[in-house]
């Protein structure tokens, strides 16, 4: 195992998350590499330090500050029926203001359940806009990945041609896969032609 890879796996090694083979490989590397031994000791010390900390208990005012408003809203919602509960969830406004809105001369259901109607309209708008938003995001994404996607597909097909070097094809396809997964392209090598 090389130094770079061992360094990447140290954290998982400290947390005992590696496979048996990887654990053995990291252990073998630690025997030879002083830098990785230091890094390992630091990680282990940090883990031990964190494990030794006592659990933090919140102060008494913390619960009082949260419990008060939550209980008030729950009580108001319970007294107003299901529509009131919905209103309380959507608009936790003072009841007087809400009542003035509800008294407006809305026809039929809109007058009786304005919160419900408004929520329905909002949901319908969101659903209708979803394909548009998704399409735009996909198009923006496609702008970024278009060439890499096609180079990836082409390289994969090149791999099935006879006498093409698989290691090179794997390199090209691998680079493209990283970009498709949202990573920045690998920089150009340092060997100038």
């Amino acid at each position, binding site marked *: 195992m090389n130094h770079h890879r061992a360094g990447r796996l140290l954290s998982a090694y400290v947390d005992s998350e590696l496979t048996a083979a990887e654990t053995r490989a990291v252990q073998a590397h630690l025997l030879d590499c002083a830098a990785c031994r230091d890094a390992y000791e630091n990680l282990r010390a940090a883990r031990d330090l964190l494990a030794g900390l006592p659990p933090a208990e919140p102060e008494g005012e913390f619960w009082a500050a949260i419990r008060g408003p939550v209980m008030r809203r729950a009580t108001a919602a319970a007294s107003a029926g299901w529509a009131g509960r919905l209103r309380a969830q959507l608009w936790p406004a003072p009841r007087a203001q809400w009542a003035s809105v509800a008294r407006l001369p809305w026809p039929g259901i809109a007058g009786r359940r304005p919160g419900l109607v408004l929520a329905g309209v909002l949901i319908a708008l969101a659903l209708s806009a979803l394909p548009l938003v998704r399409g735009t995001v996909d198009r923006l994404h496609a702008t970024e990945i*278009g060439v890499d996607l096609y180079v990836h597909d082409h*390289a994969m097909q090149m791999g099935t041609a*006879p006498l093409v070097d698989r290691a090179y094809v*794997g390199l090209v396809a691998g680079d493209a*896969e990283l970009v498709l997964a949202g990573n920045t392209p690998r920089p150009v090598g340092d060997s100038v*032609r």
Partner: protein
Amino acid sequence: MRFAAKAMTAAVVLLIAGAAIGAPFVPPAPPAPPAPAAAVTPAPRAILKMALDAPRLIDYEGTKIITALRNGRMETVTVAESHKRPNLLRLEYLSPEDVAGRVIVDDGTTARHYEPALNMLFEDHSIQDAGAAAGLTLLTRNYDIVLLGTDEVIGRQAYVLSLTPHGTGVQRQLWVDRLTGTVLRSEDRDASRGLVLTTYFSRISFSLNLPEAYFRFRPPAGTRVVSLQTVAGGTQNPAQLQQQVGFPVLVPPALPEGYTFRGGAVSRFGSLVSAYLRYSDGGNIISFFEAPAGSIGWPTIGVPVRVQAQPGRFIDLGYFRVLIWEQRGLRITAVGTAPSETLMLVAGQLIAGREQALVTDVSRRTEADPATVRRLRSEGLTFPEIAKTFAISHALGTSIDTTVRFVHGSLSVTDLATQLGMRPDALRAAVRRAVDTASMTPALPASAPSGQPAGLSTP
């Protein structure tokens, strides 16, 4: 109308001829001359077959050095490559630093690419050769295969083979191990830029009995697994693809000599759906990806170009070149190792949109039913291939479907000769006569002009 079609055909022929004659051909720099071959050496075709069969017979493990042209610079990559017959492959990249630790494990069906820096595993189709027999048929048909002699690579004797395409594309030189058939070294040359890819083993060991477990990848805990099998398995012709994708799929009217339709598939990535057509001459591939223009944007890299007055973009990635253009509401992307001029000519012919005129012209010249010509087009054949198919079918008395399989390379000369009760040499001669005497729709020029793409003009 008929006169107009003829005039357009003539114009394209002149354009192609002009591009072929006008652009200078720069021959690749000759490699160092290898030692002459020993007195008793196999034929070049036999050595090539040995190289194609080697992965099914030999295990090896070695360190490979790859030097490739990438975005205008030569990049050197070191990789530990292990192979267990018939189709287990493990690649562990060692340098440069930004690829160090990358592992690809391929079992002949699925390739798993692990990226340690991201703790991500990508699963994709295999990157290994699907069938040596079909590859050998097209390679021997479309390449001049010459044995240059023998040479020594890391202390092992190797045959040096040169594969030069009859059409355009990279010329390949292979150092094939005399004992095992393994390719120990390779060089790919581009007519305009010289060496674009070299590979060689700096160390190799054979017959190690590598354990199969070495070719199974067990990702570390917490690894994110991403399936990137963007191209659907199997193969479809353009007509079948069109039904699947729901937009018209355009088939190139002509391609460089030797390139034939090798399959189509749907490529999907998110909401981006593209029709993918693949053409090969046995050693190189040109891929065409077609998608609705609105579903994909222009890439930010490359240079803007005009293809027959249509906006396009040309991207030189090094070993691969990419040309993107728009026509009839489609965004078409061509990817390959073919010279930029060839990609431009292919794109220009597609844009010209003379499909109906060419169907009429080819059916008249070959005395074939236009409906049959259209059917062969929907199966991915170019017009020169269709003309060749009719000429061979008339000369040999073979059915159109059998002849198409022969033209595609799915049916070798030996197989067809056996079917017809002929000697292979006699069949080859008959095919050559039929093709030479047929009134052919011209293919693209064989030469590979150098420098900036001809006909490219920045808007």
